[in-house]
């Protein structure tokens, strides 16, 4: 066999391998990629859950929460199917990923969730436990807000949290009338079984960015271990 035939064959194999790797990274093929041992670009849902559990050990407080509000959803009770049905009923575009442990919904009107805020959230992200796909965390993010709108929205959310969780958050820095968004404002509650907060800060070219988070901080290690076993 001549040298150029080998060159063509090696080139074809390299091209084929590149194409296969590329195809495996397309959204439709990612479950297959996960089955094959996962892409090094992102963690698997199991690894993410382990990381989340370790993180919560560092974040959680000492006393149980008086309530665990999460924009009208029930932490550790609401399922992925429940949230998908909620989105469909309101015409909200949601996309699941990470083996259905993450659901991201775009342009969510404040009226679609339980909040005192008004306007639209750029995105609401729902995190689900791998073992049973029950909701464990809800976050919102909005950018491009002006200072006045951000202060109004922040205050409404902070008041709502105070009504449900009490007037003594773990820490807070509230917007004053002179707040110009150059420094962040935040309210953070950390209980042994629940962490929640809202923050806002100005970012270069992005306006004021506001983020809310509502997280179950219960140690669900047994369920995680079970899910890792199931997903081997």
């Amino acid at each position, binding site marked *: 066999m001549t040298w150029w035939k080998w060159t063509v064959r090696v080139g074809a194999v390299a091209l084929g391998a590149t194409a296969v790797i590329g195809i495996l*990274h397309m959204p439709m093929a990612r479950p297959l990629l996960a*089955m*094959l*041992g*996962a892409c*090094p*670009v*992102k*963690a*698997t*849902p*199991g*690894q*993410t859950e*382990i*990381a*989340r559990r*370790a*993180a*919560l050990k*560092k*974040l959680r407080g000492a006393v149980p929460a008086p309530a665990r509000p999460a924009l009208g959803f029930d932490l550790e009770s609401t399922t992925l199917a429940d949230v998908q049905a909620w989105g469909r009923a309101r015409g909200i575009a949601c996309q699941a990923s*990470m083996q259905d*442990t*993450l659901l*991201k919904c775009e342009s969510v009107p404040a009226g679609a969730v339980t909040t005192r805020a008004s306007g639209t959230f*750029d*995105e609401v*992200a*729902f*995190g689900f436990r791998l073992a049973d796909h029950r909701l*464990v*965390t809800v*976050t919102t*993010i909005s*950018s491009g807000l002006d200072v006045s709108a951000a202060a109004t929205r922040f205050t409404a959310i902070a008041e709502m949290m105070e009504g449900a969780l009490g007037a003594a958050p773990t*820490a807070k*820095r509230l917007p004053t009338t002179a707040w110009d968004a*150059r*420094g*962040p*404002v*935040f309210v*953070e509650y950390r209980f042994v079984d629940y*962490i929640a*907060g809202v*923050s806002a*800060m100005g*970012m*270069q070219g*992005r306006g004021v*960015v*506001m*983020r809310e*988070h509502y*997280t179950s901080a219960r140690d669900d290690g047994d369920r995680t271990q079970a899910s*890792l076993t199931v*997903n*081997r």
Partner: protein
Amino acid sequence: MSGLVSTGVRKLAAAAAVAVALAAGPGYTTAPQAAGPEKGRDDRGGNTSVAARLGGFMGIFNFLDRFAVPAELADPEIAPFFANLTETPGDIETCLAMLLDHDLGGSSPHNGFIVPATGHQCRSSMSNIHRGRNIPDRIIDKFIAIVGEQAAFVGVADSDIAEVAKVLERYRGGVRNK
């Protein structure tokens, strides 16, 4: 069949490695020193930089380790980027602490440091580090917002948080949609 078994073993081993790394951390007792003639200043004496006010590498690392990175990992969108197979959160904490210390006027090297616990080498190119991850602006917004809120949580001054945010913003172009 053996392929399936090895896939399972690999997954478990990777998960175990993440758990061990998360539990152990890089384990610094003193700030790692720059290999070359970096700024050559003791962050705790005579340096009035933002990095010095934040406690130099050790202060920034401890802040990332105890507050910022756990808060990032608690976010369902950001966590997958922190817990991948090739870098542990401890690696990222170390390299990010060095980068922030360096860019905020401290004595850490900008890149090239090898994390003792894992052998991971801090890299300089944000584009290379984030290539293939397709990280959108919104995720970067979240990342910076979490760092900012956690810095405020531990009592860092607004002006210093603004400087930290400015440093992180400088890297947005190298991180976004690579």
